[in-house]
């Protein structure tokens, strides 16, 4: 359990080499080893979706994976979506305009779930949007403004 492994993981385009315990969660690795604290942890049992990151382009729950499983893989976190707060990704812009966040704790997970979703389905129906985010919990917004934000983002990204 406490045996050490050296892993190489590319996160947001930068490759990191670290030696970690086999049991270290990927979420802890991203947050505490790499200091990328935009990825949040809400439940650590795979339900809330706050810890969602892209793993070779696919959304995964980083609390349900070990860091060693990411050895040799590519990860994208919310920090990789936009270069800085003045140049937002259309998805982020849409969340801003539609008031798709309140406390913002769940938001990175929603964004990372939605990025591949909208790339695959640029013109989703409301039902499809609801289904796409049904694995992400938000306790603040009641989802309505998030859904509006997704519609707006789809529009922006189609342009």
């Amino acid at each position, binding site marked *: 359990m406490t045996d050490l492994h050296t892993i190489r993981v590319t996160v947001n385009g930068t490759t990191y080499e670290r030696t970690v315990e086999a049991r270290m969660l990927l979420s802890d690795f991203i947050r505490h080893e790499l200091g990328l604290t935009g*990825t949040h942890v809400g439940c650590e049992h795979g339900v809330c979706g706050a810890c969602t990151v892209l793993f070779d382009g696919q959304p995964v729950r980083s609390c349900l994976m070990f860091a060693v499983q990411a050895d040799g893989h590519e990860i994208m976190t919310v920090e990789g979506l936009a270069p800085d707060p003045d140049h937002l990704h259309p998805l982020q812009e849409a969340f801003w305009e539609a008031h798709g966040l309140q406390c913002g704790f769940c938001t990175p997970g929603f964004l990372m779930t939605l990025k591949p979703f909208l790339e695959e389905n640029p013109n989703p129906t409301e039902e499809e949007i609801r289904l796409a985010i049904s694995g992400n919990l938000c306790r603040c917004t009641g989802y309505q403004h998030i859904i509006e934000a997704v519609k707006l983002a789809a529009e922006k990204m189609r342009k």
Partner: protein
Amino acid sequence: MAVRYFGAKIKRNEDPTLLTGRALFTDDVDLPGMLHVAFLRSDYAHARIRSIDVSQALKRPGVVAVYTAEDLGDYWRPGPLLVPPPPVEGIVFNQRTQVPLAKDKVRFVGEPVVMVVAESRYIAEDALEDIFVDYEPLEPVVDIEKALEPGAPLVHEDVGSNVAAHVVQRKGDYEAAKAEADVVISRRFFYDHGLAAAMENRGYVAHWDPKAQFLTIWDTTQAPVVIRNGIAAMLGLSESQVRVIAPFIGGGFGPKIMMFYQEEVLIPWVAMQLNRPVKWIEDRRENFVATTQERYQIHKAEIALTKDGRILGVKDVFLHDTGAYDPYGLTVPINSQCTLLGPYDIPNYYSEFTAVFTNKTIVTPYRGAGRQHGVFVMERLLDIAAKELGIDRTEIRRKNFIPPDKFPYNNEIIYQDFAPLVYDSGNYEPALDKALELIGYEKFIKEEQPKLRAQGKHVGIGVVCYVEGTGIGPYEGARVRVEASGKVSVATGVGTQGQGHFTSFAQIVADQLGVDVRDVHIVTGDTAQFHWGTGTFASRGAVVAGSAIYEAAKKVREKALKLASEILEVAEEDLELVDGYVRVKGAPEAKISLGELAVRSNPLRGAVKPGTEPGLEATMYFGPERGATASGTHACIVEVDPETCMAKILKYVVVHDCGKVINPLIVEGQIHGGVAQGIGNAFYEQIVYNEDGQLLTASFMDYLIPTAMEVPPIVTDHVETPSPLNPLGTKGAGEAGAIPTAAAFVQAVEDALSDYNIEILEAPLSPNRLYELLHKK
């Protein structure tokens, strides 16, 4: 003054930081040499601690220290009483507050028993396995009715019973009213309210700097100033030696204003003991048992009416589960008692409650804070009365509304702020009318429902009304300052948990000073920036802190005008504040920037007039005389499948009166979020304890928070009766969405199942429970 921002849908200033993952939450704090804490918690609801052996844990590499109650020495003492009982005659209140680590006895599953400090959280948790606690299990107190029977086991032996409190409040003479009544209806109601389940769990990080003799604490609290004062006192430090930072908080909803949590008291202490930064972050499993919750009440309620549906009086006797300790006093049951009266003109009221200690997690306010329970009882009584009297359910409500000319309206009982329950303002019919129109009440009842029923569909409608005491005192303060750059900084003592204060407060200031709303920088939740305050609770942030900010901004505006008038040699009346400048009306080229005025107001040489204060800065405080009463109507249409007992909400409408609205976008979001929590409380979320006092629903797999699949689109609208109690005319908006939801839902479900002729006297429902109700006969 040009009002550009107040009342406008403005995008939030705080969002880019949050959206890019750059916002600092408590668990993001990382300090060199930081240690990590894990707690060993009780597995028993009620047990005597015979002995604790931590010797193996201490031997584990990486473990730095292990503490039991014994090891805390003088620091071990029960927490303070956060809210003393209100001054009600004949009140009984037995104060028993939580202790940092259990000594001799554990009183609920999850109560902390041993604290382990280690080089990493992983090691700290490993070490928990090494600890051996020898418990002698005791019979737990779980059911609140059995808890009061003679011979019941006692949560606190020294109290002599499980009574935490007993309160009677009266208005008029209920018994006399009952004697005159044509109809008296009495029922027994059960209402359970659950967990806040904010997406961010609690957490504390403490750093003691021995050279500077200074303690810094990052805390997921809604009330940083109060935490600072309390922690300083407990640790024997002065307030100026302690800085509490409540950074970005991932949702509060009430439990994050409970103080002082056991862990909250221990983390700063241990940081000082060990001279190292220390962090503890709650995990979700802990959150289910260790963070405070709300719980159930059992009401025996009675309503007396004339045959044409006028309420003559209401009597309500209820039991309230307060959990193992009562640090938050009686806020929750008092809210139930007071909010039951609703928007109705009820001349006679008798209300009596007993708060009961049980071997369960502590109960403190969670969004709505007991108001749900009261609203549910009153609204169900009216539904039953309407049926019995053959009156339309909306008519019986309309008939009993307090008329608009009766405000301020005195309910003659004492509210949670210790002042008499007086409604400042309100006008209830327009909200009801608007809601009926938006839901299409007439058409639904007359055309759609009969048609759908004929097709074998079970659809029903629910319409309920409520009031909500908001924006209570005592006070908040704010400092507004124009910087040399011309940007404005504002500091206030309240914490913020997603309510958009960075924006709504900026809107208030931007209007006063004629600057761009993006140039107003708000600091909340840092005691180094503002010394005074009480916290964000009872939907009071925008009302109380917002008013203080308004007053301070107004003062700065006066200062700016005065100084500009001297410099420009123009009378103040002829000046205006526009785009960051004070300029001469009609001659906009004659102007001076606010930044320049800020510099000029801080001369480095020469003499100033006596009484001159440097800087374009002002600090003001605001304390409302009493709370502002918000109100509204919720309506919904629900379809139930009697076979599976699944219920689907087809339409949901909220018409809300929160006085003047600063930012409609934010208020709408507050309502949506509240309704979603209300829907959870109505049908999905339930705290289930078994007879041993074990929580059976301690994960998100068992405690079902609504997802985007369960929350329907919500239609919102507003009516506006400005509050006369504050300069902005606002009322709180934070809790309204959550309060009457279950009452509306249950009414609609009952209506949908009218051919089964059932009466639903409880919430939450669930498919299983509904099935039982349908098939019990």
